[in-house]
């Protein structure tokens, strides 16, 4: 794998995470528990899709085959998508969406804080914009985790279930392969090993305040680094890519 290929792959991974999570969050539109929350969730979706656009644009530039960010978003099939499996998990109830966001935003908080120092100027710039948004996403997710955990009996049960249900998708966030390792050597990628401990600590702290239990170490699902997904992604893409696939000659 050349450096160029590794960088292309790295950008796809980050861009796909933002795109697929942004898609999921956008599904909340007109479905949230109250209107202020509808706006908060779609606002996060907007942040994510904006970030996806920047990252996929850069990916296309790195690849250098004349594609656009839209080509990458709308014309790639599932096995060429590299988002973490957790991002494609269904919204479920509000607690599941919050748990998914808590896991991801905690990860992204440490991740983008580090990526801001990347030797790759474009990635560093994208990261410094992202980190401002992520801080808000994390605050939002942590606040709700605590509110729901320490709210009513029903909300506590739902929140605990969501935290446990999504746990098995969290391990993948810290997987590293030759893409990360080769870019890490050049100071471009983020080292995920130290982030794992920071992540666990923060999650534990939030769950404690929420009077919830931290899930036990267990088997972690894997696959997305190689383009192997859950059944969810196919449905997301068939919806997302519908117009571009049905009218390949059209410009929108």
């Amino acid at each position, binding site marked *: 794998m050349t450096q160029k290929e590794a960088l292309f792959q790295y950008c796809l991974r980050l861009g796909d995470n933002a795109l697929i999570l942004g898609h999921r969050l956008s599904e909340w*539109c007109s479905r949230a528990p109250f209107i202020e929350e509808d706006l908060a969730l779609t606002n996060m979706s907007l942040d994510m899709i904006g970030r996806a656009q920047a990252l996929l644009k850069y990916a296309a530039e790195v690849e250098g085959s004349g594609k656009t960010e839209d080509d990458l978003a709308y014309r790639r099939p599932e096995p060429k998508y590299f988002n973490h499996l957790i991002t494609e998990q269904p919204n479920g109830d509000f607690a599941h969406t919050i748990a998914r966001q808590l896991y991801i935003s905690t990860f992204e908080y440490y991740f983008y804080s580090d990526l801001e120092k990347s030797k790759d100027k474009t990635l560093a710039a994208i990261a410094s914009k992202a980190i401002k948004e992520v801080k808000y996403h994390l605050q939002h997710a942590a606040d709700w985790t605590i509110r729901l955990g320490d709210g009513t009996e029903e909300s506590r049960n739902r929140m605990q279930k969501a935290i446990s249900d999504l746990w098995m998708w969290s391990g993948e966030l810290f997987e590293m392969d030759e893409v990360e390792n080769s870019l890490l050597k050049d100071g471009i990628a983020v080292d995920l090993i130290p982030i794992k401990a920071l992540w666990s600590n923060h999650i534990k702290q939030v769950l404690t305040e929420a009077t919830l239990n931290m899930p036990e170490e267990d088997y972690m699902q894997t696959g997305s680094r190689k383009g192997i997904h859950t059944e969810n992604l196919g449905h997301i893409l068939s919806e997302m890519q519908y117009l571009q696939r049905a009218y390949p000659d059209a410009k929108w």
Partner: protein
Amino acid sequence: MHNEHTNQHFQLRIDNGEYIEAKDYMPDGYRKHLIRQISQHAHSEVIGMQPEGNWITRAPSLRSKQILLAKIQDEGGHGLYLYSAAETLGISRVELIDQLHSGKAKYSNIFNYPALNWADIGAIGWLVDGAAIVNQVSLQRTSYGPYSRAMVRICKEESFHQRQGYEIMANMMKGTKEQREMAQDAMNRWWWPALMMFGPHDTDSPHSSDAVKWKIKRETNDELRQKFIDKTVQQAEIIGLTIPDKDLKFNEKTGHYDIGKINWDEFHRVINGNGPCNKQRMEHHIKYHNEGAWVREAAEAYKKKRLAKQLEIA
């Protein structure tokens, strides 16, 4: 009891062009009229999120997805300003939503039509927001202060929506044959419902006279409708869309476009519950409102617990 004198004084203030504020005296009829109108307006913003939301996950480019998301967010924000304006008149958000669900409060009839293809997103922005703006610009000078101020904020955003909608239509008209067909199809379906948004002809409008006297409404339904027609017909021509009205023609004498007969039977049929989406829109709102009940209860319970803890510490 407020006597005749107080009501005369109120009318005098209106006639002098003063704004009425929440704490000022107002006749019951004025208050009721405003609650009905503002809540209908607020619910329209919120229910209107559904037809456009129908295309968020299928928007054909990253840019268009962001524009649409931001637009729908604005509409939700408009709903919020308007709920707040209604609350200044002594009604709570819970009551407002209950009235929507029971059918006592209405929302704009236009959202009982479906958004069937991507050009509908263009047509909604261009025609529906376009019609709304004409109405709302006029409402910026409405006599109730909080409503008027909400309108000023809202109008700034609505004109963006209208331009973005028109841009979608213009792009599609420059596109493939299929795209042009989608655009014309959307035009055909949204044109007449958009004209109906202004309500019945002045001669048949039940609420108009008080609303005009109180300067809640500054221009009549037909005046507003004509403004919309005049500006929109030309915009359609520029991008090559045909207005689905064979009787449409420019009237040299009046300087306005004359249109064919509006199908008021359809208007009444849809407003009375038999539009293609009445049931769907309401069931959607009720379903997700109910599904969110446990979240609202939890937030309430948590707030109470925190308050109790703070009191303990203090």
